[in-house]
């Protein structure tokens, strides 16, 4: 097995996942995206096993000269709106196609965060990251398979933005240095005032706070860990097929965040979630008549 670290190599990852030479940057159907907006996000169409897909990736090498906080894969205002726009464009172009023919969206994830600056807050970074998530959710619900592949960093709000709205989420295994977390364990240690050694010990039993794709796997937040870079393409292709089958079967909650909730229970990682929702349903059933 070759361990080839992919952190910071979003563009390389696109080439490794899609058919050779098939990626057309900034092109989605008949729409051409300007190349001077949101350089931290790489978008375009490509093919996987001959089937058209739309790719959205992070470029950790790019600097956004207009927004100095955007480099290293950060998703800034422009990046998030550009990503959202690509999704809406895809939905619109495929509106008349039946489920099964709508183009899959493939998200290649390597991002450390959302733009954290003063300008970003004044103009509302929360809207930018929110709009991309709503767009992905709409694509997923309207029948586009959405597959995320974490190749490097998938950190906190940026992972929510670019990844967690997908139908299925894949991640290179921890040997590749893949990082999925809200905060590193050192920060958790500072906040909880517990030794790192003790926290690491505890995380073996309970995956809810520890950093790493294997813990998200246990919680149902990652569907499958990919062990070799050579496997990225076939695994993505297989998940497109699986997700499409679920959509054709008509079960919208089998994939996506709600599906990942169910998976988290099956894997023993999130055991309270369903109990809480069911309790609310039970209690409401006994008073519902008063509200009708």
């Amino acid at each position, binding site marked *: 097995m070759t361990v080839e670290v992919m952190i910071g190599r979003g563009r390389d990852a696109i080439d490794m996942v899609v058919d050779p030479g098939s990626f057309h940057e900034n092109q989605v159907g008949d729409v051409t995206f300007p190349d001077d907006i949101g350089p931290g996000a790489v978008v375009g169409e490509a093919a996987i096993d001959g089937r058209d897909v739309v790719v959205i990736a992070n470029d950790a090498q790019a600097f956004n000269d207009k927004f100095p906080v955007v480099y290293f894969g950060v998703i800034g205002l422009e990046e998030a709106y550009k990503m959202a726009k690509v999704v*809406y464009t895809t939905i619109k172009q495929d509106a008349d196609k039946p489920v099964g023919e709508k183009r899959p969206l493939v998200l290649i994830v390597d991002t450390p965060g959302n733009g954290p600056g003063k300008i970003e807050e004044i103009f509302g970074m929360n809207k930018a990251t929110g709009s991309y998530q709503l767009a992905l959710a709409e694509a997923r619900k309207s029948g586009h398979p959405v597959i995320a592949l974490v190749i490097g960093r998938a950190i906190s709000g940026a992972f*929510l933005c670019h990844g967690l709205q997908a139908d299925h989420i894949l991640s290179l295994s921890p040997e590749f240095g893949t990082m999925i977390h*809200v905060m590193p364990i050192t920060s958790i240690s500072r906040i909880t005032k517990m030794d790192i050694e003790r926290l690491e010990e505890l995380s073996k039993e309970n995956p809810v706070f520890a950093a790493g794709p294997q813990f998200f796997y246990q919680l149902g937040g990652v569907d499958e860990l990919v062990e070799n870079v050579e496997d990225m393409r076939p695994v993505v292709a297989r998940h497109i097929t699986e997700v499409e089958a679920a959509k054709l079967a008509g079960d919208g909650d089998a994939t*996506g965040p709600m599906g990942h909730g169910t998976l988290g229970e099956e894997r023993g990682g999130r055991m309270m979630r369903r109990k809480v929702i069911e309790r609310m349903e039970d209690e409401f059933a006994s008073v519902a008549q008063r509200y009708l």
Partner: protein
Amino acid sequence: MSDWKSLEAKSFYGASARERAIGIVDEGTFTELAGPQNRMSSPHLPVLGEAVEWDDGCVTGVGLIGKHPVFVISQEGRFIGGAVGEVHGAKMVGAFVLARQMYDRIKEEHPDELAERLPAVVISFETGGVRLHEANAGLLAHAEVMDQIQESKGKFPVISLIGSKVGCFGGMGFVAAATDVIVMSDLGRLGLTGPEVIEQEMGKDEFDSADRSLVYRTTGGKHKYIMRDANYLVEDTLGDFHDQLTAIMDAPYDEIVKCRRIGSEELVDEQLALAELSVEMAPKDARDVWAYFGNEDVDQIPEMTTAEFLAVAKRR
């Protein structure tokens, strides 16, 4: 239980999550669901030696506004900053699930009265986002809530109320942005990256989190109102929030959703244009933006009462 009428006069800013849940719906109509008696507290906090709360910092239930069944989510900032863990997040999702079931039921049982009986989800935010002690579960719960907001579109409104001490930050900042309507008080604060985190990541020169007036200028209710990121700005009482909710629910659904700031290609175009404008404008402070949109005496704006401000405010 506190008397509803005296609750209405109470400050929204200082009210507990349960008081807000009771006070934002009509008198005597609130029923708590999965309340403290159920003891559905976090299974993850005890392991870390952290105190638990039986409602996990999230009061959920149902009430009425007129004939509208309103599913309430109310976050408690005093409990771990209102942060979202597995149970807290599941309660949020549960409220959406119930609202959707109710919507389907009303459509079936009262097809002619769907408009006047249209349900809603109302979220009274007080949170910094993900709870770090169970961060991974909290993060995944955020994604579920976003999914549920999208699922509600085209059916019933989702309304945000922001005016509590902790404000609404982190992942919950974009959850609020994704809802149909945002109601804030002057004291409400909304953002993605909290002031302390900006300072930590960018330095005190970029953002001094101890500068309260700077924090309010950047994230506060008046700024968000000027930017049209908040649709309504109200006085800081539970009664004013309740009245605004009543006015919103009186409007037809098609009118309500015009309050959205994101959630369609057209709105993304509009926001992207605003992001480009931010480059051109290069403001040093939110005041520069207020002036750009035609407000005079921008130094006076933070000092104005809500009524004075609403009388003169020029919005984007």
